[in-house]
């Protein structure tokens, strides 16, 4: 609409492309600066840390320098060891997440739709939700042994709850007034689910997915530290017993990176699917 107004006057036409170019430049600059701001804090910490290590202020067994950790990372990657263990860990996390997450989604939908189901199962599920991983892990090992089953079930147990709670919440917070609209437009039951309830509860479901993925990684570490002969958790545990602190750091960094990566992936998807949302983005966003 703005462009229409500008291009009406013949004189304004040549000036317009230049103005648009300038606007794009500015937007790019803002984006770039925003990205830079996010990196500032960790960058400063790493620099101070490296300097302190190089000056010999730090015990290399307890706190090796960033450079030593980097070299270890390069070394472990080049031997293929890291990739192999990461693959195993990712596979476990994925399987556990898919199992627990889909069950959580299904349970959330069921309980969300039915008041009776809520009365029946929600209190028990809420009780189970608060049980910590570390308390449950010994039991799972007793039941299912040290194999993959106990690990995946532990991860699934963690992933179940965030998706369950948030899906349930999402369905229950659908605007009642939109249900009236759906009735007036004669939506079928299927339309009601697909065109009203699912899109309306999608923001909550996405939040559930992000939290579930986070919990899946958490459960993975617990499972692999408890007893395992492969995976990133095993690398960390193994390195600890030999005091290879650089390897421990590499393991931690890999967990952090993969966790952030999976979260960003879901966030990107969320941004694309929830473009319609009109919510507060922070007062100083330009």
């Amino acid at each position, binding site marked *: 609409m703005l462009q229409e107004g500008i291009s009406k006057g013949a004189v304004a036409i040549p000036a317009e492309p230049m103005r648009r170019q300038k606007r794009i430049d500015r937007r790019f600059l803002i984006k770039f600066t925003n990205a830079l701001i996010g990196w500032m804090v960790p960058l400063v910490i790493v620099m101070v840390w490296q300097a302190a290590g190089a000056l010999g202020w730090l015990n290399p067994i307890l706190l090796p320098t960033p450079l030593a950790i980097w070299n270890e990372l390069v070394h472990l990657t080049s031997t293929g060891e890291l990739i192999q263990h990461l693959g195993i860990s990712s596979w476990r996390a994925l399987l556990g997440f898919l199992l627990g997450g889909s069950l959580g989604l299904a349970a959330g939908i069921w309980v969300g739709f039915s008041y009776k189901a809520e009365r029946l199962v929600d209190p028990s599920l809420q009780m189970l939700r608060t049980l910590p991983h570390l308390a449950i892990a010994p039991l799972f090992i007793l039941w299912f042994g040290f194999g993959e089953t106990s690990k995946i079930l532990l991860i699934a147990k963690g992933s179940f709850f965030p998706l369950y709670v948030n899906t349930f919440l999402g369905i229950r917070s659908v605007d009642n007034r939109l249900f009236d609209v759906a009735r*007036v437009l004669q939506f079928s039951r299927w339309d009601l689910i697909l065109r009203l309830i699912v899109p309306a509860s999608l923001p909550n479901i996405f939040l559930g997915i992000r939290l579930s993925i986070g919990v899946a990684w958490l459960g993975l570490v617990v499972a692999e530290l408890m007893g395992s002969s492969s995976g990133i958790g095993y690398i960390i545990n193994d390195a600890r017993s030999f005091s290879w602190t650089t390897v421990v750091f590499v393991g931690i960094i890999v967990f952090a990176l993969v966790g952030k990566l999976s979260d960003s992936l879901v966030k990107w998807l969320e941004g694309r699917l929830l473009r319609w949302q009109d919510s507060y983005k922070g007062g100083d966003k330009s």
Partner: protein
Amino acid sequence: MYGMVSGMSADTLIIEQVNKIFQAPTGNVMALKGIDLRVRKGEFITLIGPSGCGKSTLLKIVAGLDTSYEGNVLLNDKPVSGPSIEKGFIFQEPRLFPWLTVEKNIAGNLSLKQAAVRKKVDEFIELVRLQGFEKAYPRELSGGMAQRVAIARALLRNPDVLLLDEPFGALDAFTRSHMQEVLLDIWQNNRTTMLFVTHDLDEAVFLGERVVIMNPRPGHIRSILPIDLPFPRKRTGSSFQELRTKVLREFEKVEEPEFDTGAGI
């Protein structure tokens, strides 16, 4: 035409002896008492009354959104049993689906991939003057534009009657009068039967072929005034002002006896 027995009649909408009682813990309240109204096909009726006179309740009953009442409501000689697309409903707020663009909101549960739907949606977007905003999301629209989307959504389903519950009540005076003209335009093009609830006197006289004046406690129809003015009407014309005063006088009659008889039930 009036007095005809239900069966074959020229009246699209027949409301016969409708009573509505709200059950409250403090006792039952009679919201509507003995409502009788016949609306001809293609007629524009405005319903006006003070708040609490049950005009919105009546509209919800006609829409099928409220089914606990006594009496008969017939649309094309068939009793109303629930909400349906034959009875288009415009709420006070637009109530659009925030995750759908304008065109998808209008299409609703119909697929835009079907050529016939696509064509009709484009037609109605033009009718409510929203060309260029097909792909906009509701958050990008002004209140008046969003309400026009809601009107297009209801009209697309070719309703036998369009029920409007104070649709322009939340808009500023300027936008409101513009929307009234848009609605009259649509009505003159489509000849959709309109039942329009309002508490705005000017709006009632400007739009209605007949103005139904309702009285509260218990809600009932005080009088029905025909507005014999050709469209488009001029708000500043002397005959408009005369009729406005006439309705206002009825309106004042409504307010006065409310205190001596208004015991409710």
